[in-house]
């Protein structure tokens, strides 16, 4: 493991609060994999290991009135927006206090200004409608939709981009390009480029390769302001790495490829970082103990019609 002399805050251009959040997400996700291994979780859960910095970098750039659409890999998005690991863990484990009574689970979370869905591409047209609403009622607010590189396989993405561009809607598409979709590398699922796909609709595209939060924020500030004030759509593409499996135990990539991925977590190890790391690990452990001791959720209103 290569360690530099820089501190984590320097290396990541991060405030202490940023680091805390990134570490919270990291330990939250690790903890989920542990719970899975221990047979405490059912279904599927997609961790955002290696992609924690994306929602954390975006955090101060987003406003309360913005509406965030998350996807299957959404724990980081949720924690960055609400900082509520207990509510999310309760949701994933179906325990009392769950954000959505355990009904939605890992992939279907709704909270004020935030929604995730488990079907790829489905959220973008919905985000268009939401952006249309915002553009009328809340000028300056954005609909923000996180999608992966693989999700560009879905036609819904293009239908939505076309609408957003035609109607000049305040839609920010955050592409977390980790170069893989489940088991399929981008070269087998994505012809051309994300930049080209945005350009196809006359939509601005910003590429982010950094993990340095300060630089990311500096880069994204002006285009996000433009998207708000235009208003108009914007695609921001983060080049990133998926450190863990797609879901649980289903990583068939060669170990060397996984090992070669960049991990901010191993890049710095100053004392402050270590202390924060320990603290967040313990925070998550304590929350887990507490949440796992709660009874199951109740789902009082099941009506659907």
């Amino acid at each position, binding site marked *: 493991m290569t360690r530099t002399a820089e501190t984590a805050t320097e290396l990541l251009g991060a405030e202490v609060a940023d680091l805390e959040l990134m570490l919270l997400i990291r330990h939250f996700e690790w903890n989920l994999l542990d719970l899975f291994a221990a047979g405490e979780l059912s279904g599927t859960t997609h961790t955002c290991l290696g992609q924690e910095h994306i929602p954390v970098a975006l955090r101060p750039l987003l406003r309360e009135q913005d509406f965030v659409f998350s996807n299957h890999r959404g724990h980081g998005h949720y924690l960055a927006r609400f900082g509520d690991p207990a509510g999310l863990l309760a949701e994933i484990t179906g325990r009392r206090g769950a954000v959505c*009574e355990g009904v939605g689970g890992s992939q279907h979370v709704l909270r004020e200004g935030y929604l995730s869905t488990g079907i790829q591409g*489905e959220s973008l047209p919905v985000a268009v409608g939401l952006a*249309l609403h915002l553009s009328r009622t809340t000028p300056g607010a954005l609909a923000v939709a996180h999608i992966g590189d693989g999700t560009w396989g879905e036609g819904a993405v293009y239908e939505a981009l076309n609408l957003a561009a035609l109607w000049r809607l305040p839609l920010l598409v955050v592409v977390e390009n980790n170069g893989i979709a489940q088991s399929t590398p981008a070269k087998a699922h994505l012809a051309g480029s994300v930049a080209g796909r945005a350009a196809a609709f006359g939509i601005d595209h910003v590429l982010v390769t950094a993990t340095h939060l300060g630089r990311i924020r500096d880069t994204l500030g002006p285009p996000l302001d433009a998207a708000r004030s235009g208003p108009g759509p914007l695609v921001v593409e983060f080049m990133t790495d998926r450190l863990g499996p797609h879901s649980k135990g289903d990583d068939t990539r060669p170990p060397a490829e996984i090992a070669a991925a960049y991990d901010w977590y191993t890049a710095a190890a100053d004392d402050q970082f270590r202390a924060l790391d320990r603290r967040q690990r313990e925070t998550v452990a304590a929350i887990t103990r507490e949440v796992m001791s709660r009874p199951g959720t109740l789902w009082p209103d099941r009506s659907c019609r």
Partner: protein
Amino acid sequence: MAGSELPVSARVVENLNAALHAVLAADESVHLLGEDIADPYGGAFKVTRGLSTAHPSRVRTTPISEGAIVGAGAGLALAGDKAIVEIMFGDFVALAFDQIVNFAAKSVSMYGRRVPMHLVIRCPVGGGRGYGPTHSGSPHKHFVGVPGLSLFETSAFHDNRALLERALSLGHPAILFEDKVLYSRRMFAHDALFLRTTLGTDDPCARLVIDGAGPPDCVILASGGVADRALAAARSMLLTDEIVCEVLVPSRLYPLDLEPLLPVLGAARHICVAEESTAGGTWGAEVAHLLHTALWHSLAGPVRLAHSADSIIPAAPHLEREVLLQDTDIVQAVREATSA
């Protein structure tokens, strides 16, 4: 102008158009999206005439993107607005299947609490106009029994403003089917042989009985444009076979509230459900199941389904007639049922 204030001689398309005008004028949160709906074109069937002129920012003509416009409608609904989305031909609703079934309808309850979704998807449906195999379908069957979704069908006997307001008020998505052959038909007009009343209140069901004919041999359930075929069949059977039928025309197909219909249906020895859908897995089969369960002891025989053939719908009118449900098919079904 509200639909209910129109002279009864207005055509269904005018009543629908007036209903949309009224709904958009009365509530600033209502949006309408659809392909080619803007003026001066006013929609493929002219249902949306004048709306984009009256409400330019809330009535938007869209690219050819059925999936995305339903999704956008769902997004508006999620944000607290109300959205009406026009699918140009009902067959194309297949392209929005995921948005309807997996997002809009599921969102009402999949987040653990009730999420109001005011969304109505309007689908012109049905054949008989020679539009061919991809423009003539009755897609109702695909949507029966979707949690979080209701199905309505317009008819000449239901004011569309009331129907639209009802569908928009539910807090969950609804599909409104509109039989294309009805558009040019006059509202409320019908063969004077029949007396028309209403059953139920929230979701009124029109009831047409033969004036002075006494208790019916068979009750025919028929929605939308099929109601006229049922009435024609009833007339013909009265004159030729001395079979007395009465016709029920529900406005809400699913879930179907049997309660207000039970006095009528429970008194019937025979029931026929007539629909234009092609055979198999139809709305009628669902209704039949409800009826068999509720009325096992009063029914003299199984509920009879009358529907189109198990076939695609051909373009040539002479072939189309052979495939699609005709009044004569209803006559045959009722004759068989009542004589068995």
